[in-house]
């Protein structure tokens, strides 16, 4: 028999019914919607426009939102695979284009499939810090996220009558041909989604830490806390261990220098706060150091002032961060000297680092060298 391309009519399984496509699509809309909203929030926190303020409480809110971002992304992998399989026969529809609306629909599907797959593939590789591409991940993932959500909304608008008909009780009986019923296909999709979430959610949900075999962060970091960027990778080992290290604090009134011993001589505050990474993992630890409220009082500045934090790391977009007034006024925001009862080690930010409630890990600047208030 001469080989030929499949025809839409060759696919007779119940998995390809509009009812399955619609139900999986609804689930996917929820996970992608959560992923998009929490990703947008993370972007706004890291690049705040003038109208946006992110609170310092509840302390674990960012942990929750970014954990949701990554877990909903993981859940989307089997859901998207199931959705694409359910509508795969439409790839072989002939004629390929029937009308302008049909052309728009197919174009929107191409944008949807390309952007959705791109987001899941790059997101998955990013959480494991495995980058087989030359581009910088965050801006591309952010832009394509808008394309994906726009394509989904457009697709829903174009397919709404089909979806409504597919969910109606009088929907006709699906074709018979294989051993898998619609319900079985949906259950298989749900099971695979559950397995994917259970296998990874321990990265951020403490109760699942010892259950998830594929979480991408373990407790093997020093002091039981993972490290995203080591002192060696940041190129700060020599500067951070220099006995002449001093923290410079610049205010409109002048500049003050404090040694680590000088910082340790100030009133100390101990807080239990999570490190919540943009890559979705999070861990709570006990931090001791100087509260920013005390530090700002000590140098004659007002808590609630915005503080620009510079690291000994001189390159990279995370070498500086800005602590907004909402965080410098919060007594839980600390310039940490100790972690879990012992002095900070190099990889966790020695000689001192920022720990603030409800902040992305990339903004908890390590190896601090300078603070500036306006």
């Amino acid at each position, binding site marked *: 028999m001469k080989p030929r391309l499949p025809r839409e009519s060759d696919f007779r399984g119940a998995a390809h019914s509009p009812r399955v496509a619609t139900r999986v699509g609804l689930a996917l809309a929820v996970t992608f919607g959560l992923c998009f909203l929490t990703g947008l929030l993370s972007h706004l926190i890291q690049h705040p426009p003038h109208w946006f303020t992110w609170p310092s409480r509840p302390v674990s809110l960012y942990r929750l939102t970014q954990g949701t971002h990554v877990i909903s992304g993981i859940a989307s992998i089997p859901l998207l695979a199931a959705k694409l399989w359910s509508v795969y026969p439409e790839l072989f529809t002939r004629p390929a284009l029937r009308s302008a609306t049909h052309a728009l629909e197919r174009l929107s599907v191409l944008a949807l499939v390309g952007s959705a797959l791109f987001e899941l593939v790059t997101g998955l590789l990013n959480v494991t810090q495995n980058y087989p591409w030359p581009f910088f991940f965050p801006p591309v993932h952010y832009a394509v996220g808008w394309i994906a959500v*726009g394509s989904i*909304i457009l697709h829903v608008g174009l397919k709404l009558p089909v979806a409504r008909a597919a969910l109606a009780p009088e*929907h006709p009986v699906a074709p018979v041909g294989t051993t898998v019923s619609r319900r079985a296909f949906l259950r298989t999709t749900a099971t695979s989604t559950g397995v994917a979430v259970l296998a990874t959610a321990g990265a951020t949900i403490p109760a699942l830490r010892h259950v998830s075999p594929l979480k991408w962060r373990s407790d093997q970091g020093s002091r039981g806390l993972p490290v995203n960027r080591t002192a060696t990778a940041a190129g700060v080992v020599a500067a951070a261990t220099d006995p002449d290290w001093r923290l410079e604090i610049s205010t409109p009134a002048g500049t003050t220098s404090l040694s680590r011993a000088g910082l340790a001589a100030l009133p100390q505050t101990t807080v239990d706060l999570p490190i919540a990474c943009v890559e979705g993992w999070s861990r709570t630890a006990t931090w001791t150091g100087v509260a920013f409220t005390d530090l700002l009082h000590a140098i004659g500045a007002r808590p609630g002032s915005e503080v620009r934090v510079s690291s000994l790391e001189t390159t990279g977009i995370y070498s500086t961060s800005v602590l907004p007034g909402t965080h410098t006024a919060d007594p839980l925001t600390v310039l940490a000297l100790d972690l879990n009862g012992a002095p900070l080690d190099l990889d966790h930010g020695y000689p001192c680092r920022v720990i603030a409630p409800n902040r992305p890990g990339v903004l908890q600047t390590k190896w601090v060298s300078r603070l500036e208030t306006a």
Partner: protein
Amino acid sequence: MTAIRALLVISGLATLGWGVTLFADWALPLSWTSVSAVLWLIACPLVHDALIAPAIGLTARALDFLPAPVALPAKRGLAATAVLAVIAFPLVWRPFAAPAPPGAHDEPLAGLLVSTAVVWIAVAWRARTGHSNVPEQNTDPGTAGG
């Protein structure tokens, strides 16, 4: 309904357009970096449509030759295994390009093997206890076999 559809189409196009604008802002002027991102965008659906989807279909078809009480649990187990393999792939594929951060790797290959073993123990149990789905034909319209 028409108004809702129009609203969805317009807001979808606007959102999509905003995404394209953001992407163009980042990508232009063109460089190898931005071209590589475009290539990834194109490659993802191509790889899916030309390789992954046919592999799913052929595997599912091959499993249809198994006895009915075993076929569905096997398909379910294979689906879960494939998902676990996809999630584990970036962990087991290669060492980190950057200096390995402590706590990043937690025996991912062992994790994949353990989770896969759990899945297939469940599959074996389902097949043995006969809880698998015999095709649900002519029962109700929502669950008809196919």
